[in-house]
């Protein structure tokens, strides 16, 4: 391939496209969409300030408690607010459908509440317009529109024969046009890059965020490269321009609507998940079998009490050197948490099985690949949400057990009730328990869990290049 011919063909494609008014209309519309999506992203991200504020208020409220019985503090509880990842301005992912605040208290794993979707109209189910979504769904349509006739129109009107007799090879024509189309798609893509970088620069973020952004931007670039090549491949393989356009629209529908929806439906059918009620019911049913840790005379805990009395060589819990009800609740918390964690893990595993089909399908559908990777790196996917749930539950458990330990250590042995202002612990203890802070999964672990998506994008790039080379050898100008 001669570089000058390649660039000449690419430049001619550009010039030809820019002589048409349609390109300016498309660019204008894209910029309006970008503006809207960026604005949505920023206002979406602004919610973080409220969440930080609420988290601080919850903490102040926790610390403002007077001297109290620790078990009352365990039930006073606190809130964990899920902060949005800085990159969620770019891709909203499943954020709108997942809750963002959870009340943390002893013995009880509350659900994460207050999702955007629960306070919005059903329109949100069509998806909010994020920058990522425009790049994933709308930009391919624009590329298809700009490039569907790139080769086939020249064949239809005989210009291709002139191109080839003027000395250009098929490879130069195909790659030249692909380069021109990819260049055009980059022109549409660049404002998104600038907007995202500019919005991120408004606050200072860690290297992790910038590394994530770099991978995201590279993935979208490859995605557009694939879309551009695919457009040229369909154009060269079609008999008429109309045919090429219909094929490309069909491919778009298949990749963006049919395959993702079907894979989700099949996943849900193959791996059904319990309703919220069934899930809670199953946990409670199991927890009940292990008795009531609040009741010092609960038959289930009798064997524990008897063994503790035996070890300490005493007859009654009042003679123990520590507060036994606190100890019993410590054991009870451990048991109920293990049950919850197991059930929750099973539920998440079921969701993961459902999603697994979609993840594997990314190998045949680059849209699924880039979508999965984008959501994961923007911290708006199911796994990130699961990591929040995991960390919130771990914090809740630590909090409950820390209060139980305070009760064991500081409340007299014969005290079985937490009522009143006599059997209390100094309020300074509340401050010594650390506040909840959510740590996002590292970029390494995120990339590890999205390996299939990464492979998909790289594989599709290679496959598309292979198909281009195939057509360069086998295409006909007639």
């Amino acid at each position, binding site marked *: 391939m001669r570089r000058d011919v390649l660039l000449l063909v690419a430049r*001619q494609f550009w010039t030809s496209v820019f002589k048409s008014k349609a390109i300016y209309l498309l660019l204008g519309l894209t910029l309006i969409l970008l503006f809207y999506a960026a604005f949505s992203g920023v206002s979406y991200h602004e919610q973080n300030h409220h969440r930080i504020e609420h988290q601080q208020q919850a903490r102040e409220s926790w610390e403002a408690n007077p001297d109290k019985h620790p078990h009352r503090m365990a039930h006073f509880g606190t809130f964990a607010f899920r902060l949005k990842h800085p990159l969620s301005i770019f891709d909203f992912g499943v954020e709108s459908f997942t809750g963002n605040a959870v009340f943390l208290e002893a013995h009880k794993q509350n659900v994460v509440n207050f999702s955007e979707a629960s306070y919005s109209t059903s329109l949100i189910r069509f998806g909010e317009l994020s920058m990522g979504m425009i790049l994933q769904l709308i930009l391919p349509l624009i590329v298809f529109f700009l490039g569907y006739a790139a080769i086939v129109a020249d064949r239809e*009107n005989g210009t291709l024969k*002139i191109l*080839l007799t003027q000395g*250009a090879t098929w490879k130069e024509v195909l790659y030249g046009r692909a380069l021109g189309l990819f260049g055009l798609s980059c022109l549409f893509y660049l404002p998104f890059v600038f907007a995202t970088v500019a919005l991120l620069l408004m606050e200072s973020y860690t290297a992790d965020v910038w590394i994530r952004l770099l991978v995201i931007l590279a993935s979208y670039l490859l995605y557009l490269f694939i879309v551009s090549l695919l457009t040229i491949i369909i154009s060269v393989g079609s008999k008429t321009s109309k045919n090429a356009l219909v094929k490309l629209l069909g491919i778009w529908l298949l990749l963006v609507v049919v395959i993702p929806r079907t894979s989700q439906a099949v996943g849900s059918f193959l791996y059904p998940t319990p309703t919220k009620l069934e899930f809670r019911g199953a946990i409670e049913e199991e927890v009940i079998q292990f008795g009531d840790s609040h009741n010092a005379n609960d038959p289930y805990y009798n064997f524990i009490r008897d063994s503790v009395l035996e070890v300490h060589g005493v007859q009654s819990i009042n003679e123990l050197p520590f507060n036994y009800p606190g100890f019993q609740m410590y054991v009870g918390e451990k048991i109920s948490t293990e049950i919850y964690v197991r059930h929750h893990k099973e539920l998440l595993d079921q969701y993961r099985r459902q999603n697994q089909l979609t993840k594997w399908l990314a190998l045949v559908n680059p849209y699924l690949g880039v979508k999965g990777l984008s959501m994961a790196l923007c911290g708006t996917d199911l796994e990130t949400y699961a990591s929040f749930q995991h960390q919130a539950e771990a914090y809740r458990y630590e909090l409950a057990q820390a209060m139980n330990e305070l009760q064991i250590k500081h409340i007299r042995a014969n005290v079985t009730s937490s009522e009143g202002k006599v059997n209390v612990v100094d309020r300074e203890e509340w401050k010594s328990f650390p506040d909840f802070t959510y740590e996002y999964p590292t970029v390494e672990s995120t990339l590890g869990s999205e390996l299939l998506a990464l492979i998909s994008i790289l594989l599709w790039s290679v496959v598309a290049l292979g198909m281009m080379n195939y057509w360069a050898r086998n295409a006909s100008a007639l």
Partner: protein
Amino acid sequence: MLEAVNLSKKYGQKDAVVDLNLKVEKGEVFCLLGQNGAGKTTTINLFLGLLDPTSGKALVGGLDVVENKVSTNQILAYIPEVVQLYGNLSGLENLEFFSKLAGQKIASDELSKLLLEAGLQEEHHKSKLSSYSKGMRQKVGIAIALSKQAQVIFMDEPTSGLDPKATDEFTNICKSLAKNGKSIFMATHDIFNAVNVGDRVGIMNEGRLIYSSHTENIDASEMQELYLKTI
């Protein structure tokens, strides 16, 4: 300059060109007449290297087209029935692009001269090609061939759809090209124009060259009679 040696092309079981033998010398205009589907365009495509022959050889400048595609492409040019090119670009921009593609680096004023030489008036050089008539587009096609300094020009039904004045202009341009040493191979339905512009005329039917003669030996009405008899 141009030679077909036992040239044959089959599409599956169907014969498109059968055992074609012909020569077109330097500065000669050869017009090939025939019905739709007679094999005229297939013959041109074989010479352009866009189709591989089933048997035989197509030679351009003494070189086998199949084995020397790059070299033969350098000395030939092609003008289709309708020169569409890129409607969004002007005639001058189209010419610039196609001449660069052929490896020619020609200054803008030189390109304008070529367009003038091909018969396109200067006021149209910078207008969008989409506003051109068919005849004006043909002239851009000729300018492309001129810019490439092609020795052999293949034309496929170049005068179909042209009005008499435009046809006459086109005929004169072809004659002038031939005078300057270009060999022209023209597939056409236009018997009168073929006899007028061609040095030799051939009739093709079902892939076979069934008649070939110098135009000085036959006039247009005789040719028409012969054509109607033979097909």
